């Protein structure tokens, strides 16, 4: 099982940059909250699939 950790804003910025996307500072907190919610969803999915 591999679940991507969401560490901080810098991590998310880098993940988006890899897709050619730029995270604006005013969007960072909300995008990070969504990312953490989704990381937990992915953890749950992988856990169920084991």
């Amino acid at each position: 099982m591999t679940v991507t950790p969401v560490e901080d804003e810098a991590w998310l910025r880098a993940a988006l940059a890899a897709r050619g996307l730029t995270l604006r500072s005013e969007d960072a907190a909300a995008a990070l909250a969504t990312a953490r919610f989704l990381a937990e969803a992915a953890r749950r999915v992988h856990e169920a699939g084991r």
Partner: protein
Amino acid sequence: MNAPPVPSLREAGAALRAGRMTAAGLLAMHRDRIADVNGRVRAIWALDPRADALAARADAELAAGKDRGPLHGIPFVIKDMVDVEGLPTNNGSRASDTAPAIRDAEVVARLIAAGAVPLAKVATYEWGFVGPEQGLAEPPAANPWNSAHITGGSSSGSAAAVAADMVRLAVGSDTGGSIRSPSAYCGVVGVKPTRGAVPDAGFFALSPDLDHAGVIAATVAEAALMLAAVAPDTMASARLTDGVRGAEIGYARDWFAQDPALDAAVLRAMDDAAGALSLAGAQIVEVQLPDYALMEAVGAVMIHVQGLRLHAASLRDKGHLWGRMATQTVMGGAVLTDADLQAAMALVPDLSEGVTRAMEGCDALITATTLAPAPPFALFDNGAVWTPMRTLPFNVTGHPALSVPAGFAHGLPIGLQFIGRHGDEAGILRIAAAYEGCTDHGAVPVPL
């Protein structure tokens, strides 16, 4: 001006065929109602310039003895994520292509072929993803029952226009509850058919494995007539007046009753609904559905992986035109990988089988559509909020599901959700019609 609600399909159909009304006159009644109330509801975004010609065609055909059926001459509206010839499909976003659609979506074409008259494009959340957001090209639609509250989305204008009695029929789409939740919040009937039962050609894709085309209407019978026009196979065996005597209905009470976000009034309404169905002759049995949190997680992973794939180029090239909520929500999906999507999709067959198994011996399941009535706009002042509902799992599994009005909590409508076996839209519409017939929730006049 004080324009009355538009007439039901039954009333309008009888008047058209008796020569007491023309389709052109019916269209004018709809426009008068829009002029009267849309300033408060903001559901209607663009009128279809073809409506007059198509209403005139309907009148000419009736005069010549040609009757296309129960939708002949009846206006309908279309969510602005669905192509309508000659109008841009804006998807609620400034970043959309503004070129007019060159042809109607298949559903729109089928409705027109059934004699219906395309009245207008209606409001949606940006890309169908998230809302409500102020400051976009168009303001979000407001709940007709209390304009300080949201409609839900993303088929927000479809539900609000029907609830405000501007129209009886609306086209919507549902990827995680986008037909059923606004229908519950606004007190109308919303049907998400079995996945693939209604063609979605000409609909903007949000998540190809979860997207469903569907309908919103003022009553179950009107939803059934609309569904019969866009997907005749689904309604071939429909007998809406058969009632529920002898039917067995599974009540998925535990699936929502322990959620801390549940409004106690919703639980009372759901228990009352189970009681009403029992009094009407159905046998109610409690059933256990697969783990809700897991089903939501599977759906959330699918939507966000596919959503980011779909939107990355637009975000890159036109991100400055995007609203903040959609930007933040789509970008959050960067945490997910293709492996996450594969893992989520690998669970779908078992989850679908789990729902089908829960339905064994039952004619339908019931559960709450949303766990609370429509929240106020103020809740969204600081960004998107995940509102509690029980809709996304049936996008994951593809089972048909619909929401019908089930009463009020704090002065706002709430919805009861019916779920059926794959392909059994007719069955859940029959049971929903029986429920609607033994209650009067849908008959309460909207305070506009």
